[in-house]
């Protein structure tokens, strides 16, 4: 298959989005939305598979440029709708279209009966369009298009239940926090254009003129030639990546984003969109490598975020929130991996994480679906009897997330941690050792909080409370509409899924099927990246064949590296595997004790540490702090500006308008109506003029 077909990967979902949008208008067409969306995504996936087959063949290491149409061309700026295909692109496309297809199939069941069914699939299709554009973009501006496009879809989907004020607020927060990062990204693009005069990645020839791409510019530069502005570029880009991938300090939107439907959380806020930041850094690694401080910064932020988010996850009670913080934490791992030059590790973790986190979210969605929207793990227990399939699917996901030996997460996490320790132990900075240890500690915490969820929900005595959604249908049809009882609110569709079952129940195979596929991936995907005896793996070949191959830095670091770093008398990788396996099992055991066998002990523990527990439960009060430090003052500024505008600026204008009036009031005294007064005025005028003229002369 020609790789030209890859052009269709974004546009099939785009067409599906338009079609689904039209379906919104008609009740009968609404059911068509899901099949159309699924077909477009699956065909995208199949095309991607075809393209993957061309690796090494038509798709060379240098990457291939596919021109679609001219987009922005003015001055020297050359940003076309053109795609850049290399192995990294293909890998990302596989994840996006693959997970996307599975989630769409799942959602076809999950969202069934919802009034916004077509709207949902329109947004999902649009998201896949934007995400694939992001991944395939040949220039930064197009990448930015995808970048903001996924942001829009995220906004629309978080706010899917738009009549819930909390959903609207969460959507708004996500968009705005992302925008902050995007500003950095945009400025980064501008600085790149300013410094290199180009924004496209690949070198291409048009009309006999060669347009050298960004990568070529970068490779031409030696580190000594790099000037200060170029050093700044990665930091600006990084800001965008932190925003999109929910890293410190811009992570705050992601936990709130769980207001969206669960498939959305799985697809966008776990598997694909949030990894865009990692992808971007991997894609632009040549630029990041130009600055000696950029990647270490990424590593530090990643490591810190991983630990920070994991601690918060310890004391959350909402299942999806736990997974949300775990996503933030795992994204931190990926940044750590990229930051320590293990792009392979970062991307590997991205790849495996897509499977097991999507699986976890979707199973959480199943639980929620079965319990009518109930997500509070304190209000459910022992569901393994009611939902056996879901129970064991989630168990697989939890194992992978906890890094249980030989699951997917185990290999990828290990690769990152080993790389960090390796750099630390070979004397490239104690910082790396600290990061590695922090990563290990985070792995322990991860295992604990993951299984805390699983044990709480599925083990123990079977008791649960149903969620509010049934009640909402029956009792409070004016939910959220107290302001206007007269309005037509008999069906509160934006808020409620029509629900026929009235007790916890297992899902149908339309929903469980995709989960099984994901579960298989979560168990086995790790082997794709596991190096064989020659140190070679499929994933390594993918990275080496792309721009994400950290050649420059690795060479620079080569001086430090010894052939085999040793730890605890073992080869480093082996040692790390052993250590993290132990930590993982330890975490699971602690969780099992506190949340299965001896739940009162957990409560006692929480009481003893009530202060810390409250801090964690309230997420370190970060939201409150941000509200007080940023949002409130900014809004106050708005009020101040408004008052200033009305009083001072408009007041000044009005004051200027008063000047002639005041002049008029002053002069009016001369017009008092007395004839002789006027005569005196004239006589004085003549006299004054005579004197003045005499002076002039």
């Amino acid at each position, binding site marked *: 298959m020609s790789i030209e077909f890859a052009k269709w990967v974004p546009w099939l979902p785009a067409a599906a989005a338009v079609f689904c949008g039209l379906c919104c208008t008609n009740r009968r067409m609404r059911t068509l939305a899901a099949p159309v969306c699924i077909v477009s995504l699956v065909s995208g996936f199949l095309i991607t598979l075809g393209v993957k087959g061309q690796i090494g063949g038509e798709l060379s290491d240098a990457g291939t440029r596919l021109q679609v149409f001219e987009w922005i061309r003015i001055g020297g700026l050359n940003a076309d709708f053109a795609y850049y295909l290399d192995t990294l692109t293909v890998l990302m496309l596989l994840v996006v279209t693959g997970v996307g297809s599975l989630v769409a199939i799942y959602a076809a069941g999950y969202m069934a009966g919802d009034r916004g069914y077509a709207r949902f699939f329109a947004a999902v299709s649009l998201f896949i369009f934007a995400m694939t554009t992001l991944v395939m973009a040949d220039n930064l501006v197009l990448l930015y298009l995808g970048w903001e496009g996924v942001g829009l879809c995220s906004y629309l989907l978080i706010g899917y239940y738009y009549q819930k004020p909390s959903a609207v607020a969460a959507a708004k927060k996500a968009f705005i926090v992302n925008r902050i990062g995007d500003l950095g990204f945009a400025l980064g693009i501008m600085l790149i254009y300013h410094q290199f005069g180009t924004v496209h990645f690949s070198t291409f020839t048009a009309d006999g003129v060669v347009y050298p791409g960004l990568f070529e510019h970068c490779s031409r530069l030696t580190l000594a030639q790099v000037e200060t502005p170029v050093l700044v570029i990665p930091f600006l880009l990084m800001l965008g990546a932190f925003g999109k991938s929910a890293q410190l300090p811009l992570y705050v939107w992601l936990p709130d984003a769980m207001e969206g439907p669960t498939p959305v959380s799985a697809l966008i806020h776990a598997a694909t969109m949030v990894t865009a930041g990692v992808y971007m850094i991997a894609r632009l690694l040549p630029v990041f490598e130009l600055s000696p401080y950029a990647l270490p910064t990424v590593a530090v932020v990643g490591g810190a975020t991983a630990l920070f988010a994991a601690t918060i996850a310890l004391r959350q009670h909402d299942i999806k929130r736990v997974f949300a913080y775990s996503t933030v934490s795992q994204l931190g791992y990926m940044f750590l991996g990229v930051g320590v030059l293990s792009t392979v590790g970062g991307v590997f973790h991205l790849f495996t994480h897509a499977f097991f986190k999507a699986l976890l979210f979707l199973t959480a969605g199943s639980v929620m679906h079965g319990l009518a929207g109930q997500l509070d793990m304190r209000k459910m227990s022992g569901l393994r009897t009611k939902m056996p399939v879901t129970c064991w699917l989630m168990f697989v996901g939890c194992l992978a997330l906890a890094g249980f030996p030989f699951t997917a997460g185990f290999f990828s996490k290990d690769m990152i941690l080993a790389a960090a320790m390796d750099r630390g132990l070979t004397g490239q900075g104690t910082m790396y050792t600290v990061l590695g240890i922090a990563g290990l500690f985070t792995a322990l915490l991860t295992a604990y909080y993951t299984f805390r969820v699983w044990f709480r929900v599925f083990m123990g005595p079977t008791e649960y409370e149903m969620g509010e959604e049934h009640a909402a249908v029956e009792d409070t049809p004016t939910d959220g509409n107290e302001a206007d009882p007269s309005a037509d609110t008999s069906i509160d569709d934006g808020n409620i899924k029509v629900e026929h079952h009235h007790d916890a129940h297992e899902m149908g195979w339309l929903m469980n099927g995709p989960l099984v596929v994901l579960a298989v991936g979560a168990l086995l995907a790790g082997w794709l990246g596991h190096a064989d005896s020659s140190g070679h793996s499929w994933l390594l070949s993918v990275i080496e064949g792309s721009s994400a191959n950290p050649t420059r830095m690795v060479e620079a670091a080569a001086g430090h590296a010894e052939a085999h770093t040793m730890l605890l008398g073992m080869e480093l990788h082996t040692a790390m595997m052993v250590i993290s396996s132990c930590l993982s099992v330890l975490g699971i055991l602690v969780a099992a004790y506190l949340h299965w066998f001896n739940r009162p002990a957990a409560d006692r523990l929480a009481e003893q540490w009530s202060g810390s527990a409250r801090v964690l439960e309230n997420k370190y009060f970060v939201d409150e702090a941000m509200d007080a430090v940023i949002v409130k003052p900014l809004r106050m500024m708005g009020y101040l500006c408004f008052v200033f505008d009305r009083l001072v600026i408009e007041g000044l204008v009005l004051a200027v308008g008063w000047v002639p009036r005041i*002049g*008029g009031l002053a002069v009016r005294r001369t017009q008092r109506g007395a004839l002789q007064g006027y005569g005196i005025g*004239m006589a004085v005028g*003549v006299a004054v003029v005579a004197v003045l003229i005499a002076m002039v002369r």
Partner: protein
Amino acid sequence: MTHMLDKIVTLWPEVALLVGACVCLAVGLSPRAGTRLLCAWVAGLSLVAAGGLLAFGVGQADQGLAAAAGTGMTGFVKAAIVGVGLLLLLVAASVPSELERDAPGGLVDGDGKFDPGSVMRGEFFAFFLFSLAGAMLCAGANDLVWLFLALELTSLPTYVLVATSRDRADAQESAVKYFFLGAMAAAVFLYGFTLIYGSTGLTNFDAIRAYVAAFADSGEPLAPLLRTGLILAILGVSFKIAAVPMHFYAADVYQGAATPVTAMLAFVPKTAGFVSLILLLSLVQPAGAEATRAVTWLLCLMAALTMTVGNVLGLLQHNVKRVLAYSSIAHSGYILVGLVGFTEAGSTALGNGTAAVLFYLVAYGLATVGAFAVLGCIGSRGDEAQTYDDLAGLGRRHPVLGAAMLISVLSLLGLPPMIGFIGKIYLFGSAIDRGYTLLVIIAVLNSAVSAVYYLRIAAACYFRDPAAETVSLAVPWRRAGAVLAAISALVLGVAGGRLVDAAHVATAGQAQAVAHVSSVAP
């Protein structure tokens, strides 16, 4: 003797008006109302006749005589006066019968109430024609005596017109103010004329120019007596144009007089005054810029003060007639901008300040007559419309009158594409051409201020609901006059090229004449 007859040739249009005036007086004596009705037609005929005479070139004689008469602008000015005069006649010809008259008790003499300004009275039209003739004579003046007589011929009938225009105390109050202050101002400019004569021993303009040119060549400054005389003359004449410091009377008089008479006051004496100013300034033009710096300063000062005073006072008024009076003062200020730097004869059209003045007089005349005419077409509470409230809803009740009012005030505001805008290009362009940029900036800012009250008029016409007590008066001719004035203001704005050329040609002749005189001076 032949010389005298030659000169009379240039005066045929004036003669036509004077004859018409006399016929009006005679016809007005008739006891039959129907016969007296003819007065308006007689006046109209004489104006048309004067126009015809002008059109066939009778009034301008040949080039040599025009030069001898002092200027080439005579024809333009006369034509302008005849044209706007016809409009004024339309405005004045039909007098509403609806308005109440508060006749003083016991003053019912003879055949009924005193009905001033009516078509029934020959005097009104006779004085009207006399005044127009006086203004036309100003344009042809080539002697101080002539100018003095012409100015007085312009003014004296207007005193009577104001006094008898309405049978109301207000009209008489404005008449007494107008007359007494006018007499005082006349004394002032007469004193100025006397000093000019005293300084030179001459009254003939050509002779004075030659005298001044001779002095200029000798490098001596202008004689103090001459300078003082000139300045007194300028100040005295500025009463006619209502410029600071002689502006005090204007608002009161305009307010008190009947609207058609006010319209006339706003145009005829002002034209006569500006023409006189042009002539007076031409006397010292040969002396050059340096020697006449004081005069230039005076003009600048007067221009800036006049427009500013007029506009700021206009802001405070509620009475539309008063507003238009202050607007009239402000416009005198703008027009004075065209006179500064009079020593440089403009070679290009836009550099020609004198032509700009003449052109703007026409522009101003059309617009202001239009505005007053509309005002005269409506009545309120048994009186003429006076306040903003009286204009409320005019645009809805009488779309045509409303549009005429809108066009008129926008033209006065100088908004394109009305004729007032071209006038402003002309005036301000010529001032910039002579280097008076600051004055132009003051002028444009003043235009912005004036927008406040012009807009108030437009807003009253269009934005407010019609007031219950306003009535439209049965004055078909006046309406025709209003519409005609507005249409002219619009059409001449869009197609004003010919008029601009005419003004330029007229004054270019003057410039040549001056150049001629100064070159032959000993």
